[in-house]
């Protein structure tokens, strides 16, 4: 094998991952932009291209409609709109990307929340002709609420405003005024683009020489995204107990899970919550051998130096910075169901590997996500409403605040009768 080959290969195996989500109103050009990113970075195959060329022709579209690449379901193709979250994948020699393409209709806010929950970065599209609108604020608010630390404001359709620098600057100013209230976002970039024509998406625009910044793809490829995980508070939510029942591993009891924070090493003192039992880490196992240390997001199994009763839903942590343990949870939620929240309804909460019955204790307030103000006097949660509630759970949860840990600080509420997932929650 030549040196060049082996370095390429190392490149692939060493590549890191950026997950991002797109947001914007209907027709701002999200699907076209994703199609463009994939097309220009050569992630589109010939047969896919052929198939959308045919469909575009049939529909009488003027250009090959790149949006058809992501608008997967029949209803979407017929109505020409995106109705669900679609996941897309592409890679450049620098990075792998996972995109959550989420629809912009108001009634689908829940999909944006879903896409945002696993993203490190959000691209929010703004139509250059319309500027910053209610939806822009709504989407930025959600990105902030879900703790996405990097945001790109992509000012699209610059071709329709004569590539005007003034228009771009005005949008930037308007957004910055609003953004001062978004406390979780670490970094915001503004990029003028035309998704349709390709300007500043992958190739630098020749129509906007006044813009000195990077193209969108270059920005996505080179942005430093610090480890999302919290490496201070050690957390192992126990998913499953491995008991081989074989002669060779007769006494083996491995507590299997995906590390949700901090670092574990053999010999560490640990405490099991909620029981409070103490032990030392004996070893950290994987099928490939024992690890010297385990950290997020690795899936491992842990053995301890003594036998204690541990089962699914328990949390293994270190004694110096334990999780909160309790049955009263104060959280921001986003309501996902067509049926409004019934404060006397029966719910099941899913948090890490724990499942417990839950009741709504109190609805504190809802938030107007356009102004970020509390809404007075209307506490009925309807589809897409966001606000603060308190919950009482039938068994104790071991948790952190969402600000501190996205894994141990998040939960969903499930309707105990329909089994639907009805709310997403972020613990305060």
């Amino acid at each position, binding site marked *: 094998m030549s040196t060049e080959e082996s370095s390429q290969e190392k490149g692939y195996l060493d590549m890191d991952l950026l997950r991002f989500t797109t947001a914007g109103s209907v027709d701002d050009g999200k699907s076209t932009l994703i199609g463009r990113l994939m097309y220009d970075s050569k992630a589109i195959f010939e047969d896919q291209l052929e198939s959308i060329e045919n469909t575009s022709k049939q529909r009488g579209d003027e250009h090959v409609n790149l949006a058809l690449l992501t608008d997967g*379901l029949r209803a979407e193709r017929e109505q020409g709109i995106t109705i669900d979250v679609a996941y897309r994948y592409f890679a450049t020699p620098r990075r792998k990307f996972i995109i959550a393409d989420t629809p912009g209709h108001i009634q689908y806010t829940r999909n944006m929340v879903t896409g945002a929950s696993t993203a490190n970065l959000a691209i929010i599209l703004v139509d250059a002709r319309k500027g910053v609108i209610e939806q822009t604020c709504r989407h930025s608010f959600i990105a902030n609420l879900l703790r996405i630390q990097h945001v790109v404001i992509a000012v699209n359709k610059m071709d329709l405003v004569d590539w005007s620098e003034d228009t771009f600057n005005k949008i930037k100013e308007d957004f910055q005024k609003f953004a001062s209230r978004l406390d979780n976002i670490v970094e915001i970039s503004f990029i003028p683009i035309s998704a349709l024509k390709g300007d500043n998406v992958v190739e630098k625009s020749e129509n906007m020489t006044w813009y000195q910044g990077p193209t969108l793809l270059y920005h996505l490829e080179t942005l430093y995204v610090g480890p999302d995980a919290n490496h201070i508070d050690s957390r192992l939510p126990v998913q499953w107990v491995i008991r081989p029942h074989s002669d060779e591993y007769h006494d083996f009891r491995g507590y299997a899970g995906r590390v949700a924070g901090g670092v574990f090493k053999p010999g560490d003192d640990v405490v099991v919550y909620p029981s409070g039992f103490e032990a030392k880490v004996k070893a950290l196992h*994987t099928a490939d051998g024992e690890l010297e240390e385990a950290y997020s997001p690795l899936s491992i199994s842990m053995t301890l130096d003594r036998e204690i009763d541990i089962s699914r839903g328990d949390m293994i942590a270190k004694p110096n910075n334990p999780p909160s343990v309790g049955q009263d949870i104060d959280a921001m939620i986003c309501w996902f169901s067509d049926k409004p929240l019934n404060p006397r309804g029966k719910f099941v909460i899913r948090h890490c590997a724990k499942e417990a019955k839950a009741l709504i204790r109190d609805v504190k307030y809802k938030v107007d996500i356009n102004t970020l103000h509390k809404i007075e006097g209307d506490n009925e949660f309807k589809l897409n409403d966001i606000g603060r509630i308190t919950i009482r759970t039938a068994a104790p949860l071991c948790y952190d605040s969402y600000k501190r840990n996205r894994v141990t600080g998040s939960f969903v509420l499930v309707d105990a009768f329909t089994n639907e997932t009805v709310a997403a929650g972020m613990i305060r």
Partner: protein
Amino acid sequence: MQDYSVTHLKQLESEAIYILRETAAQFERPVLLFSGGKDSIVMTHLAMKAFWPAKIPFPLLHVDTGHNFPETIQYRDDLVAKLGANLVVGSVEEAIKDGRVVEEKGPNASRNMLQIQTLLDALEDGQYDAALGGARRDEEKARAKERFFSHRDEFGQWDPKNQRPELWNIFNGRMAQGEHFRVFPLSNWTEMDVWQYMKYENIELPSLYYAHERETVTRNGTILAVSEFVEPREGETVEVKQIRFRTMGDATITGAVESDADTMDKIIEEVAAARQTERGNRADDKRSESAMEDRKKAGYF
């Protein structure tokens, strides 16, 4: 400070193991669908890792169309023996004999649709409440919208417009009597990831994946291996070609590609340079633009 970064392949592995463990924990009777294809081979390998040193705590289910390459069956039996796993076989052949399904007629008949019924029957017979599949979202447009935990009603159908939202790494596997779930641990993997991972993990594959010489016919632009199930028709000529398979399925519809990639490294090079998706040469997807979506709604993987 120490660098705790985790490469994307390790992240994908870790995520898949997490999903496999959730499946074992949340369901009473999960089953892993083993097709003999590379994705199900990787999924089985990940299941081995997820529960090591214990055995995989659920059986492997193979829906046998009766149109298999012998290499696939040999490979399956060897793997099952090596893992000490439990194998269940659902046979399309028997379903036809029992009159539960009727074979398609005509020149482009395939057993793909029959596979759906046989699969649903096998799931019902075994009272399985979760079926693990190796499908990936990058394979096809309708699959791009699949969840990790995909709910199926009591008829085994998928309702793409009414899917449960999936947030963070929380998966809701609650269901009513008679319903079940499809679970896809490789959702976030691409074809390239699968190949790179197999190489990294030294996973052995059936010989069909490597370039070899074989008698073929070319039908509707698809290269098919001549076998007892695919015989040359009028006007078709049998040609000996150097080919390999990119996916594994019913021998009557799985197209081969001309290739001289006879090692993992060469295959990876070829995949990187490919201009066609791996499903691009499957006759069943070509039937119409939403062929996959229709089959998925009916219970296909």
